[in-house]
């Protein structure tokens, strides 16, 4: 006898999306969240790309999520002998379309995840916070639910695991392994308060990325394609420096030195003149992220389903290697997981055999595979290590400038055509969304 039709583990970005859809289909749905408040254990310098909103859940697109600031461009700076200069390689939605038409929206994780979880609860899902799923219940080799930190056994017909990259339940269920350190980036983030008018003046609606050759020592040794990133929020900025946990058999000397890299960056002229006089440090936080899981064949091929269980989001390796973001892919996989769950329960068949359609759908999605297997960002690592400055700039252009268009236009076009095929009026919804989000920000 099951306590619930569906148990969803984790109220981050993916879990509530899956739970809402299941609850709306009339399934009794429970979300277990280990934090006291959804999203307060989620850490990211987060710009959710536009395609997550366009092709993700319609209720997010048509809703009023708590966004911080629209982003309509990326400005790439190069650092040389402590001087920063922007030359080429920058990307911006031209006026008058930008910043109204955006390439993404920055946001804090706690209010956003709380907003998502609230929508799932409104749809009828039950949310239990401060409850950790510590193990799966397994009978006859099949998952039947979870055991909580209180020792309670909760049984469900389907288990949706959106636990995140640590994947502890997937490992306990016997279908996943730890992510290899080569695919995991550790990011050290700083959050600074900064007056809105200064942000408007300095970066406006642009993300600012800072690149440098190794001798500049502003990109960590195993940075692997990372730069120093500055993300403008409404009245604050988020900065990130990242470093892979392992590369070419070397374990990150890392991370101890990430602070030293920040110190170097804080000496550059742009920071000194434009940012430093107006910023006040508010938080120093960090987290890991399985950015290159999709680029590693062994990691990519780990199962995303077993009898009575589906994995989604970071737990299933849904991280866009192309742009180091996992939110849209978590949303896409969450909706597909919910659809598959609803069908399986209707058919009364939750066997791995039936659920294999989940994996097929993930692979058939116009954006997921293209995003998680895109190597351009990773290629920047080689640029930083052993090529000329000219080659480095070319690769930055391909990874983060207008060159992005070359490898992202086709999958996005496929998604646009697919959406319009199903609903020809959808572009009006999209324009509506851009306008409404811009107003929300204003």
């Amino acid at each position, binding site marked *: 006898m099951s306590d619930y039709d569906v148990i969803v583990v984790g109220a981050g970005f993916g879990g509530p999306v899956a739970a809402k859809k299941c609850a709306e289909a009339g399934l009794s749905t429970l979300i277990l969240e280990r934090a006291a408040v959804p999203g307060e254990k989620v850490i*990211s310098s987060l710009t959710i790309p536009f395609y997550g909103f366009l092709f993700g859940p319609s209720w997010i697109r048509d809703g009023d999520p708590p966004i911080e600031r629209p982003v309509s461009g990326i400005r790439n700076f190069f650092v040389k002998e402590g001087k920063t200069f922007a030359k080429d390689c920058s990307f911006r939605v031209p006026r008058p379309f930008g910043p109204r038409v955006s390439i993404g929206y920055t946001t804090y994780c706690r209010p956003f995840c709380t907003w998502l979880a609230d929508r799932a609860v409104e749809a009828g899902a039950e949310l239990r916070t401060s409850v950790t799923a510590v193990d799966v219940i397994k009978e006859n080799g099949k998952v039947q639910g979870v055991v909580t930190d209180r020792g309670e056994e909760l049984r469900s017909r389907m288990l949706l695991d959106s636990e995140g990259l640590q994947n502890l339940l997937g490992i306990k269920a016997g279908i996943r392994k730890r992510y290899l350190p080569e695919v995991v980036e550790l990011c050290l983030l700083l959050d600074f308060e900064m007056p809105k008018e200064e942000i408007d003046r300095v970066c406006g609606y642009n993300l600012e990325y800072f690149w440098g050759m190794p001798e500049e020592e502003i990109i960590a040794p195993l940075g692997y394609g990372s730069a120093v990133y500055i993300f403008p929020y409404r009245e604050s900025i988020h900065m990130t420096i990242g470093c892979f946990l392992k590369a070419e058999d070397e374990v990150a000397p890392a991370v*101890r030195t990430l602070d030293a890299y920040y110190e170097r960056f804080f000496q550059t002229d742009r920071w000194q003149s434009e940012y430093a006089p107006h910023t006040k440090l508010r938080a120093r936080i960090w987290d*890991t992220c399985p950015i290159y899981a999709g680029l590693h064949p062994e990691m990519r091929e780990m199962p995303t389903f077993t009898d009575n269980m589906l994995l989604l989001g970071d737990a299933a390796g849904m991280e866009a290697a192309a742009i180091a973001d996992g939110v849209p892919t978590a949303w896409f996989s969450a909706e597909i997981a919910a659809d598959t769950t609803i069908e399986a329960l209707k058919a009364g068949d939750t066997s791995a055999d039936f659920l294999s359609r989940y994996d097929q759908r993930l692979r058939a999605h116009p954006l997921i595979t293209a995003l998680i297997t895109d190597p351009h960002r990773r290629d920047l690592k080689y640029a930083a290590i052993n090529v000329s400055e000219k080659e480095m700039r070319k690769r930055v252009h391909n990874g983060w400038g207008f060159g992005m268009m070359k490898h992202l236009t086709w999958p996005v076009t496929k998604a646009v055509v697919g959406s319009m095929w199903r609903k020809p009026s959808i572009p009006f919804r999209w324009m509506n969304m851009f306008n409404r989000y811009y107003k929300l920000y204003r």
Partner: protein
Amino acid sequence: MDESLRQFEDIPGVVWVPPPEEFITVDRDACTGCGDCVRVCLASVFRLREGKAEVARLERCMECAACFFVCEPGAVDFQWPKFGTGYRSEWG
């Protein structure tokens, strides 16, 4: 503020609710003393003693599990802190 919450000067913007029990443990027999967990931990949770890693300052852990990912012999056991304890941040 709730007196049971902890903060650290070098990690602003975060508060910790003390966990009821240790959620990261090191299997001393499996540990090779390579020190990778010590190197990757931004919270300085680990230290080496007598050629083995041990958990020394778990109260600062941000639950990123970097130690768990880098430990080649699998000596670091990582679980979640229970009952909604551990770190909390508004600024993630």
